[in-house]
């Protein structure tokens, strides 16, 4: 028998609630991906299968949605995700310097995770605080007017 990773009780309950708000099951797929990612930090192939099963969709369909959205992670990420804004106002205000400093401190580039699995570094489009550029988010926390000197202290809080 093939081994299937099923959804947990918590995940199913949360997904059921989302299904109750939409006209048909499939329409809840993005919410389902969000729910599962919240529990497991990323969406594995097994998670795709489990969601597909639960919403009566094909795995390919679920994957086509999952891979479209940049905040659904189809690869494992570290304990904390750093989203550094690389859009225009932050470009003008020198996000490049922040990126270099982060690369040096964490020994990773965009798209990579530190060896200790603590941080994943990703570029992100404009974070909507361009009057306080450069800007970045770590998990759900927003940092504005980021300066290189502050990075050690900022990162320390997540260790």
């Amino acid at each position, binding site marked *: 028998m093939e081994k299937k990773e099923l959804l947990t009780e918590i995940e199913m309950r949360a997904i059921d609630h989302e299904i109750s708000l939409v006209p048909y099951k499939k329409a809840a797929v993005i919410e389902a991906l969000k729910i599962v990612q919240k529990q497991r930090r990323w969406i594995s192939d097994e998670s795709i299968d489990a969601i597909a099963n639960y919403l009566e969709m094909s795995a390919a369909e679920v994957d086509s949605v999952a891979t479209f959205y940049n905040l659904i992670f189809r690869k494992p990420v570290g304990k904390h995700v750093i989203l550094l804004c690389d859009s225009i106002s932050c470009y003008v205000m020198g996000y490049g310097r922040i990126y270099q400093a982060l690369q040096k401190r964490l020994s990773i580039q965009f798209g990579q995770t530190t060896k200790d699995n603590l941080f994943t570094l990703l570029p992100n489009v*404009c974070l909507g605080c361009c*009057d306080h550029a450069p800007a970045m988010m770590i998990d759900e926390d927003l940092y504005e007017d980021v300066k290189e000197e502050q990075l050690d202290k900022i990162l320390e809080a997540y260790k």
Partner: protein
Amino acid sequence: MEQPLTKNIKAGQTLSLKEYEQAGGYAAVRKVLKNNAPQEVQQMVKDSGLKGRGGAGFSTGIKWSFVPMGDDARHPKYLICNADEMEPGTFKDRLLLEGNPHQLIEGMILAAYAIKADISYVFLRWAYRQAAEIMERSISEAYAAGYLGKNILGTGWNLEMYLHTGVGRYICGEETALLNALEGKRATPRAKPPFPQVSGLYGKPTIVNNVETLSCLPHIINNGAVWFKSLSASEDSGTKLYGVSGKVKRPGVWELPLGTTMREIIEEYAGGMANGYRLKGVLPGGASTDFLTEEHLDIKMDYTSVAAAGSRLGTGTMIVMDDATCPVGFVHNLQHFFAQESCGWCTPCREGLPWVEKILLGLEKGKGSTEDIELLQMHTQYLGPGNTYCALAPGAMEPLQSALKYFKDDFMAHIEKHKCPYGN
């Protein structure tokens, strides 16, 4: 100077339901639901001359008028607030979402009533975590106060409101792509017609309006069309949230009469250029608008005047390019963004934008030739209006075509010197 949308907003604070009501909040909903038919609300908003503040600048009243009304109209009808603010350089809706959420909710109730909607959504980008918390709380407050839910204020009209947070991608801000995202699909834009007013979310009549647009509605209803027009310093009605980012002394966002000049906004409100820098170019309304230059500083920032100067008001949030920033690098950054955010549905956009990005990178690294300039020119045609499924690629071409026009010398210097003269 009146600042109806922001006058009650204090930096870093959120107006509670009680504070909002004390400042006259929800009076418009009380007035209209008791005394006016939905069509009358549509007429008031049409008369006010309100145009969409999300970038396209289309008349809000006229947009609504295409929604089928009457007993045989299909239900549920939907009203959606586009709070997917992701246009690079734009940070105006965040202020309204975080500062005065009930003003937005009241605006949504008014818009929903005007089209007789049954269900409403706030489509909020994921990154606005604080706004998400605030909206969630405020929507519950509005339910508890009887402004949402069943039999609102005893009128027999029902309206549900939900907060939906996205999972990224700029294209979700395009209204038909947003509908697909809400339906749990890939956010590719839809072919029009049918327009969302007739066949939108789940194929039902739907209106999508921007946060700032919706936030204007309570004030229009309370004070009338004549008053709303009088707020403006131009042909267009109302105030506008203008923003400035880049190397200016005081970057920020301010609510000012629509049609305030670019000079006044940049020099007085943003305090002028930071020490040691000169203004070289401005994107007047976000990343997908044409550059303007110093010679345009005295134009009024209204829909007509900015268009007459060869650009677009867009979101009204200006990005200032200073003289120490390389225009080629600047435009490369923009095109990298657009190439990455293309949904990949139509060929010119999916294939053209990465090509443009690559050419610009070559130029910036000093490996470009004059042929590259011609190729870029060609792309501004091929990816221009009418050749693509939605406005993303044509929008991407706006800063490129105007950069080639105004900063040609900089492009040529990269080719002649085989390197970036700005040291990139």
